[in-house]
């Protein structure tokens, strides 16, 4: 039994030594816990054979060669005690690190008392058993401390690593906002404090944990300071951009630089949203650069705009129709932007040349291929709308009596047109828009069929539900398809302006042309020649696709009817 105990204690002490966790003699002499010390003194008095003294002061060789009932000798017990002493002293030497360690320490002291009492009887076998159990508890105390030490050192390593990473990144910023500098200093002080707490002798891991908490909080506060600083920068960017965003672009470069800024700003905002303040501050330089470039091109002075226009007119005039036709859509859009540099042309050479550019800019093949596919899908989707299905006969013709019921009720008209528009936009991957109706009779200038209103917000569609306008059902269908394509054009232009349509997208050149043609930019005035008016890119697309889509719809309905679905 004593061999086992000896081996246990020796192994434990070896482990402590191996781990470099053994205590120096100085440390052992100053255990921090009074209860332990008091108990230790009590136990030493009760159990240590060498120091046991009778009350009358006469030393008594009490145990001598006495044997316990099972045969364990005093000397065996003395050897066990000697071997256990260091582990017990180590357990007593520091504050218990947690509740488990406190319980173990308490148990150890109680077992030592019990061991002493057993030795008094004398029952060295019992004393030895209690002593071994006490050593086990001492091991638990040390193990808990070890666990906390390891946890604290690992936590310190991680916090140091993150702090170092953050500090290095902040050090590379071109400009470090004041609050960030201040928070960095606080975090650095907390890091130093945590380092001191983790190397302090004697070890005090609960205090070290507190210091690490402070470091963690300081790093969190530093992150918050970075996010706040980034938000402040964001506000500044918004103010600067707002001052220029409504200026009419005088060049395609201004459009691309605007998109470039918005792409950078979106990434920047995303980092702020993800609470990545350092990342946002790092990204802010790119945002600032993109914004500065945009500001330089966004709003040229009046004289500069006039010069851009003058040169553009001269350049376009030099081009033959064939040369103009052969230019890429992007190049033609760039010319159109320059022709609109001084505002939307209303007369003279600028208007003439702009009309010429438009007339020589039919939709590109990539765009037309996309439209062909879209029309087919739109027709198939609309054909399956129940309210549409019951309007048509098996030949794909509208049933007159059914149509009469619809147009007699303006709400039914609006609801039906809205269903078509919603289905069309769904196929185009876009959200639905507001569709409203009004009523206006034909006059000497013709019939207003309706329109699509572009604004800062989503586009809206307004259609004339007067019987003069939609008495023929074909006209109602064609009008809603036409105006919904205009709504899509608006959303595509907004995507381009927001940097959400990549320059590598096959549709980009066409949408760039839509943008220069947009109302308020290069949309032709009503008094222009009708052929020229209808030849502008926005109208060519909506008119040809919206009108033709109706025949696709009729064919789809006929197919649905003939298949019996």
């Amino acid at each position, binding site marked *: 039994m004593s061999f086992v105990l000896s081996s246990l204690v020796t192994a434990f002490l070896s482990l402590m030594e191996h781990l470099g966790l053994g205590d120096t003699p100085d440390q052992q002499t100053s255990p921090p816990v009074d209860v332990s010390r008091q108990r230790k003194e009590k136990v030493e008095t009760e159990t240590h054979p060498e120091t046991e003294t009778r009350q009358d002061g006469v030393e008594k060789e009490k145990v001598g060669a006495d044997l316990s009932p099972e045969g364990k000798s005093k000397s065996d017990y003395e050897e066990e005690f000697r071997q256990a002493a260091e582990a017990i002293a180590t357990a007593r030497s520091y504050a218990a690190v947690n509740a488990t360690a406190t319980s173990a320490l308490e148990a150890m002291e109680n077992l030592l008392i019990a061991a002493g009492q057993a030795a008094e009887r004398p029952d060295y076998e019992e004393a030895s058993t209690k002593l071994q159990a006490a050593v086990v508890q001492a091991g638990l105390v040390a193990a808990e401390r070890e666990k906390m030490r390891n946890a604290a050192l690992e936590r310190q390593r991680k916090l140091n690593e993150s702090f170092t990473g953050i500090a290095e990144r902040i050090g590379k910023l071109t400009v470090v906002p004041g609050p960030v500098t201040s928070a960095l200093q606080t975090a650095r002080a907390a890091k130093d404090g945590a380092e001191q707490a983790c190397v302090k002798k004697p070890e005090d891991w609960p205090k070290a944990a507190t210091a690490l908490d402070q470091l963690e909080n300081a790093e969190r506060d530093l992150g918050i300071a970075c996010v706040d600083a980034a938000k402040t920068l964001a506000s500044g960017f918004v103010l600067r951009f707002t001052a220029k965003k409504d200026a009419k672009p005088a060049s395609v470069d201004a459009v691309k630089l605007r998109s470039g800024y918005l792409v950078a700003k979106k990434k920047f905002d995303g980092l702020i949203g993800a609470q990545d303040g350092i990342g946002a501050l790092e990204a802010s330089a790119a945002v600032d650069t993109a914004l500065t470039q945009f500001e330089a091109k966004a709003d040229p002075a009046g004289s500069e705009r006039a010069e851009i226009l003058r040169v553009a007119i001269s350049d376009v005039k030099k081009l033959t129709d064939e040369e103009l036709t052969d230019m890429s859509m992007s190049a033609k859009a760039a010319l159109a932007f320059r022709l609109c540099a001084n505002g939307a042309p209303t007369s003279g050479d600028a208007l003439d040349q702009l009309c010429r550019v438009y007339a020589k800019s*039919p*939709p590109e*093949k990539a765009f*037309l291929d996309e*439209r*062909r596919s879209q029309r087919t899908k739109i027709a198939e989707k609309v054909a399956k709308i129940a309210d549409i299905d019951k309007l048509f006969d098996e*030949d*794909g*013709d509208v049933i007159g009596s059914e149509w009469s019921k619809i147009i007699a009720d303006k709400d039914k008209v609006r609801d039906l047109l809205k269903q078509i528009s919603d289905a069309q936009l769904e196929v185009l991957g876009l959200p639905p828009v507001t569709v409203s109706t009004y009523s206006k009779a*034909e006059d000497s*200038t*013709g*019939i*207003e*069929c*309706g*329109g*699509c*209103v*572009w604004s800062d917000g989503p586009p809206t569609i307004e259609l004339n539900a007067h019987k*003069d306008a939609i008495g*023929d059902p*074909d*006209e109602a269908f*064609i*009008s809603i398809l*036409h*105006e919904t394509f*205009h709504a899509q054009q608006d959303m595509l232009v907004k995507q381009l302006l927001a940097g959400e349509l990549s320059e590598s997208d096959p549709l980009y050149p066409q949408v760039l042309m839509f943008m220069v043609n947009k*109302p*308020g930019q290069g*949309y032709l005035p*009503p*008094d222009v020649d*009708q052929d020229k*008016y*209808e030849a502008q890119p*926005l*109208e060519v697309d*909506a*008119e*040809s*696709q919206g*009108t*033709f889509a*109706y*025949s696709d719809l*009729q*064919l789809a309905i*006929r*197919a649905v009817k003939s298949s019996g679905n």
Partner: protein
Amino acid sequence: MTDGANEAAMFQAAFRAPGDKNAVPAGVLAVDAEHRLRLVSAEPELADRLAIAVSTLNGRETFTVRAAPQPGDAPLSLRKRRVPRDAPEARSAMLEMLRKTYGLELTPTG
């Protein structure tokens, strides 16, 4: 070339979708004095399109063509003008609808 019974003129119809460079033969249509259409023959793959075009346009009392924008018209607005069947420009209006809506271009036969 005319159809004696209805005094209808005969036209070769060709089909061209928006953006197509070339038109493809679609069939033959007869057009009478009131601009009503009759399907004489059709390429199988375009027969439905021709049939719908004929049915739809014959069912209309008037044709419509895009009208010139007027001062005060909002951008992107759509304005049309109705053309009665007996109006001088009814034939061209019908042909324009046939072309824009159905992609059908007519050429007199013979």
